[in-house]
C-alpha cells in the first residue's frame, strides 16, 4: 500500500473553557490516499470542522499525530506548518471566506503570494496572473475577474474560493460544507466542478457535508459522532 497523503493517528483535541476541559476529538484515526475522495459526515457538533483544522495544521492536536506523505508535521514550528499548509492543502469553506477588498482575480492571486517573496513575485507576476485567470476560467468565471465578492453570487463566490484553493496546486483539498450555503441547483454545479477538477488533477479530497447524496459520490464515507469515527 502506498503512503497516504494525509494521515491522522489517535488525534485528540480538547478545548479549555475556564476550568473545564471540553473534549471535541477523542482519538481519531483517518488516512486519505492520493487521489482519493472521502466524505465526512456527522451531526452538528461532532467535531468535523475541528478535525479539518487539525488536519490542515491550523490548530495543533492536543495529542496524537498528523502525517503528510508519511512525515510527521503537527509538531513542526509554526512558520513551517504555514509553509506546508500552503504547499500541501487547499481549504474551501462554507462561507467562502474571500477578502472583501479584493477582486475575484486578486483573491485567487493572493494564494500565489503567500510563500513567495516580494521580489520573486514581482519577477513572475505576469505568469501568476495568467495562471490565476486560467484558473478562474476553468471554474467558469472568465468574465467575473474584476468583480468584488459583494458583486458575486454565492455560487460564484464559492467558485472563486475553489480557484484560490487550487492555484497553489495542493495535493489535498479540505472542504468544510462547501455547498452548505447554496441552493441545490447551484450546489450541484459547484460539486460537479469540484469533482471534475479532482479527477483531472488526481487530488485527494476530504469533504465535510450533511448531504448523503453528495457523500455517495465519494470513494469512501466516514461518519463521526461525538469526536470519534463510528464507521
Amino acid at each position, binding site marked *: 500500500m502506498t503512503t497516504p497523503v494525509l494521515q491522522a493517528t489517535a488525534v485528540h483535541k480538547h478545548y479549555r473553557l475556564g476550568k473545564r476541559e471540553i473534549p471535541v476529538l477523542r482519538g481519531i484515526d483517518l488516512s486519505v490516499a492520493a487521489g482519493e475522495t472521502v466524505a465526512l459526515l456527522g451531526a452538528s457538533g461532532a467535531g468535523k470542522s475541528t478535525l479539518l*483544522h487539525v488536519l*490542515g495544521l*491550523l*490548530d495543533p492536536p492536543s495529542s496524537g499525530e498528523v502525517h503528510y506523505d508519511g512525515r510527521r508535521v503537527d509538531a513542526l514550528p*509554526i*512558520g513551517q506548518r*504555514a*509553509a*506546508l*499548509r*500552503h*504547499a500541501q*492543502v487547499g*481549504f474551501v*469553506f462554507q462561507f467562502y*471566506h*474571500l*477578502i472583501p*477588498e*479584493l477582486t475575484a482575480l*486578486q483573491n485567487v492571486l*493572493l*494564494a*500565489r*503570494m*503567500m*510563500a*513567495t*517573496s*516580494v521580489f*520573486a*513575485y*514581482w519577477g513572475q507576476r505576469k505568469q501568476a496572473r495568467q495562471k490565476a485567470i486560467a484558473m478562474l476560467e476553468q471554474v467558469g468565471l472568465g468574465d467575473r475577474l474584476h468583480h468584488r465578492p459583494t458583486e458575486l453570487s454565492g455560487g460564484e463566490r464559492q467558485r472563486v474560493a475553489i480557484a*484560490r484553493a487550487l492555484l*497553489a496546486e495542493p495535493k489535498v483539498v479540505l472542504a468544510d460544507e462547501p455547498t452548505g450555503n447554496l441552493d441545490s441547483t447551484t450546489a450541484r454545479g459547484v460539486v460537479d466542478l469540484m469533482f471534475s477538477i479532482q479527477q483531472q488533477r488526481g487530488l485527494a479530497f476530504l469533504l465535510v457535508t450533511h448531504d448523503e447524496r453528495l457523500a455517495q459520490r465519494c470513494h469512501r464515507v466516514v461518519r463521526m459522532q461525538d469526536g470519534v469515527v463510528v464507521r
Partner: protein
Amino acid sequence: MIAAFSPFLALRYLLTRRINLLSVLGVMFAVWAILLVDSVFAGFVSTIRTDVQNSAPELLVTDLPHDTGYAKLRDALQAERELCAATAPRLRHHGMYEPLRRPPGAELSAISSQIDFDHTENGFGILVGIDPVREANISGLASWVARASEEFAVRGLELPRSRVLDSPDAKQRAKLLVAPELEWHARKRVGLPVESSVENHTSSWPGVLLGWRRFRRSQALLEGDALDVVVASFPGLGEGAALHTHPMRMAFAGWFATGHRMFDEASMLVPIETLRTLLGHDISDSDSIDLVTDIAVKLQPGLSAAARAAAKTRLQAVVQGLLPTGSAPCLVLDWEEQNEVFLSAVTHEQGMMQFVLFVVMLVAAFVIYATLHMMVTQKIKDIGILAALGGSPRGIGLVFLIGGLVVAVVGTALGIGTGVASAVWLNDANEWFFANWQVELFPRRLFDLREVPCHLEPSWIAKVGIGAIVLAVVVAFIPSRKAARMNPVTALAHE
C-alpha cells in the same frame, strides 16, 4: 523574506480606508510643525546669537577690582603679541539723562505700542565709557551707528546716521563731539547764549550715543541737543562715605544699534574720559587714574578654538599678575560667556519647544496606533483566511506593520515637503496674508525683527524624518503583533 502578500494587502487595506488619510495627515502635520516651528526658532536663536556676538568684544576682561587703571594692563596685554591684536578700555556706570528741554511736540511714539520698556522712559541706564578711537579696532562701533538708521528705516522712520565718528580729528572723535553748527543750533533752541555766528562756535559738550531702543521718549531729540547726564557714586569707603552726584551737560550725538536687545535698550555710549571725570578721575588731576571696569580684547585672527581657549587662560594670568595681591580673581570671558544667562535661556526655550512638538508627534503616532488597531479588529476574519492560505504569522503581522510604515513614510514625505516649502516661503506667505487679510501669522513686531528668520538644517530634517518613521513603526508593532499572534481558527470563526 517578506512574503508578497504582506505589502500587497497592506496597500489594499490602506487605500480602501479613508481613516488612514487621517493618520497620514497627522504625521504630515506633526512633521510640518516640527520643521517649521523649529526652523523659525533656530533662525531666531541664530539671529540672536549673531546680534549678541555683534555687540560683544571677542574677549572681555572683567570683574576687575575698584580703581583699576588701564595703561599698565593694556601694555601687558599687548605684549602678548601672538594672542592679543588690540585692546580698548571700558568703564561702566549707572547714570541718568534728561534733555535740557523737551522739544515741543515730543509726544510718545506709537511705533512700538506692544513693547513697553519702562526703564527707558526715565532716561535711566548704563553709561558705557568708551575710547572711540581704540574701540574702532575692537568692536563694530561704526557699524552700530550705521545700523541704527537702518533699524529706524525698516520701521518707517527717517533718522540720519550720526556723524560723530566721521570727524577727521581724533581728539574730536574721542569726545564724540557733534559738529559745531549742530551744537550752536541746539544751544539756540534752548535759549543758551551763543556766538554771533555759527563759524565762531566750537563744540564742547561731550557726545552721548543712545541705544536705538530708547526712542520711545527721545526720538524727537535732534543731534546736538543738550542732555544733562547725572551719575551718583560713593567716593571712598566706610566712615563718612556719602552719596555724591555729578551732573554734566552733554550733547545727544545719535543712535546706535548692535542688535542685542538688552544692550540697545539699556546702554548709552559716552567718552570714557568724560565718565572718568564724572567719577572723580579727571585727567587733569594729579592723583587721577585711567579708570576701567573692563577691558575689551581683540585676538589675533586665525587662532584655533583651542588656541583661543588657551589665550583666555593666559591673558587672565597676565592681568591677575598685575592686580594688587589678594584681589579676587578677574575674569576673561568670550562673547558667549559674557551673555551666558541670556543665551542659555534661549537655548533652554528651544529645547522646551522641541519637547512640545515631540508631544504633537506622539499624538500623531497614537492616531496611527488607533487606526491600525481598528484595522486589525476589523480584519480578524481576513487574518484567519490568510492563515488558512498558508500565510506565516510573521507575514500576517507584516501586513499591518507595513501599513503603518507606509502611512509614516507618506506622511513624513508630505510633512517634509510642506515644511521645507513653508520655511522657504515663510516671509512671502506672511506678507501675503498681511496684505490680503491683515493677518500676521508671525508678528514681526512682537519679535521686533525685520523679517522672520528661518533656519532649516538638513540634518534636522533627517532626524525628524527618521524619528517620525521609527516612532510610527514602533507603535505599529503593537497591533501587528496582535495580528500575528491570533489563533487562526478563532479568527476564522469571528463574525
